[in-house]
């Protein structure tokens, strides 16, 4: 049984409880008083389908699928406007990221969402050497939508690249594999351990 099905089985009709128990800072969702300041304060609010205020109400209304497959929380840029203004001091930004992470773990995150794609690329890139290879990460972003558009992007940003090289902000040799952290296997073990603990926790929660 997948984790998703297990969670559905366990929480049945109480998505709010599921969020409180599994999503980072999810316990705060019940404190929302639906004033709408977060929604109005979000600089990208008009670009999302579901504002934080709406997501919180959907959670309470058991709209599990709609919430977890929503691309809205992936649009959060962590500007923290909502946290600063929330009259009840809900850690809204963190809840957004918590919801996104949870959806990802359940395999429900929208595959087509570019932020989702980028987050994963960033993570994989970082895990290879223990630090982000900026050159490779940048290139993978340029070539995200195929070879031709990648070349076009690269040409368009040629001047920027040259200037960065001149200012020693970009090392072209990093393309060869790049440099890593001192104890790479140690770091990878540490992350693995953390991931195992987290997976065990979710697994136990789902029972």
């Amino acid at each position, binding site marked *: 049984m997948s984790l998703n099905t297990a969670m559905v089985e366990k929480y049945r009709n109480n998505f709010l409880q599921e969020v409180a128990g599994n999503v980072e800072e999810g316990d705060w969702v019940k404190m929302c*008083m639906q004033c709408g300041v977060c*929604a*109005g304060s979000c600089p990208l609010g008009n670009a999302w389908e579901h504002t934080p205020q709406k997501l919180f109400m959907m959670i309470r209304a058991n709209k599990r699928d709609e919430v977890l497959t929503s691309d809205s929380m992936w649009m959060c840029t962590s500007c923290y406007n909502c946290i*600063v203004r929330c*009259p009840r*001091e809900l850690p809204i930004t963190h809840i957004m990221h918590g919801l996104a992470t949870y959806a990802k773990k359940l395999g429900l995150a929208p595959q087509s969402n570019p932020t989702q794609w980028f987050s994963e690329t960033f993570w994989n890139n970082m895990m290879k050497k223990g630090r982000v290879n900026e050159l490779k990460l940048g290139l993978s972003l340029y070539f995200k939508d195929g070879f031709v558009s990648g070349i076009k992007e690269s040409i368009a940003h040629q001047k920027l690249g040259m200037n960065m090289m001149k200012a020693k902000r970009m090392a072209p040799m990093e393309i060869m594999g790049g440099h890593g952290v001192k104890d790479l296997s140690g770091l990878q073990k540490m992350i693995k351990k953390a991931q195992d603990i987290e997976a065990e926790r979710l697994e136990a929660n789902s029972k």
Partner: protein
Amino acid sequence: MTEVVATNQTILVVGAGISGITAAVEAAETGKNVVLVEKRAYMGGRISQLYKYFPKLCFPSCGLEINQRRLSAQGGITVLTMAEVSGVTGAEGDYTATVKISPRYVNENCTACGACADAVEAEFDNDHNYGMDKHKGAYLPYNMAKPERFVIDPRIIGTEDAEKAKAACKYDAIDLDMQEETVEFKAGAIIWATGWTPYDANKIQPYGYDRYDNVITSVEFERMMDKFGPTGGKILRPGDGKEAKDIAFIQCAGSRDRNHLKHCSRICCMASLKQSTYITEQYGAEDEDAKGTIYYIDIRSIDRFEDFYRKVQNDPKISFVKSKVANIIVDKENNPVVKGVDTEGYHRYETKHDLVVLAVGMEPNVTKESFPVEIAINEHGFIEADEANGGIFAAGCASDALDVNRAVQSATAAALRAVQVVNKVAGAEG
């Protein structure tokens, strides 16, 4: 020198707003000796700055006058204005209060003729009107001020203006050599009726009260309606002096907000509902441009005022938007534009108004640190009813965010408690 006759059977009432006056009068009417201390130059407190009361929409000046008459008819009440309690020592039944009296520079000869004000040139922000206009260096705080006596602003002392004022007075009422005094007297019980202050709207940055002329507070809006107020009873935009017809009210401006005041200030919903009726009063029901919009989280028409809320809901001029406004910007004509998302349907709005009124919250006037005596205060700054307070009781908004009705009830209760304390003292002394 000011003489205060007081014993440990005297009740000291601090603050002569509606709560303090009520507590003083109620205690005096049971035959007790009362000293009423007021920081301002006149009695009446915040209600003297209100245009109308909810829910009856009657004038506060009416009730204030009745209470002032009760106060002067009763006797047994010593009123000290421009006075502040700076120290309290002792215990229940035997307190000693130290009161600092600032010089008024005007004695009881004053007939309030106004010749001094005509002679003086310097002008200062008028606190009674929240700085919306100026008063002269010699002034009567407002037209119903009691005691009806002018005040010389200490900032003109030592200037030519002060001499001009003195020369203009035909009654020898101006005494420029008056000094600050400190008096000390006994009291058996103390009632703190130190009242409230509107929350500082400058702190609510997204609403831009500090940046935008046409964003004002509810207390300022109240002053505008007063015929003798800064705008002569007209609703005018401070930015350009034009009539404001499309008016927005923003609820919970500073209240129910952990970044500002945690508590619900309780009165602001009713105050805005009341103020929304001013629009029809000012422009008439036929004026189609005149309208009000109330932005709210939820309407808390306290007490038994649901009827009033329903009445306003049925007013075609007034609309309700369930949303806490996220922020305010201004357009090219300096009109405030309120932005947010409403909770009933999650519609994004960006609405232009002529004037925005922030329904600011209530904060206790006296901070915990500045109380001259050890006293139990809750996290919101209001005085708790606590046995550890001994013979010290809170009345009105010093005890909680209250409307006038509840403040008066609270004042009567405080008076009764104080009376019991001094009765015990009297009993012990035989």
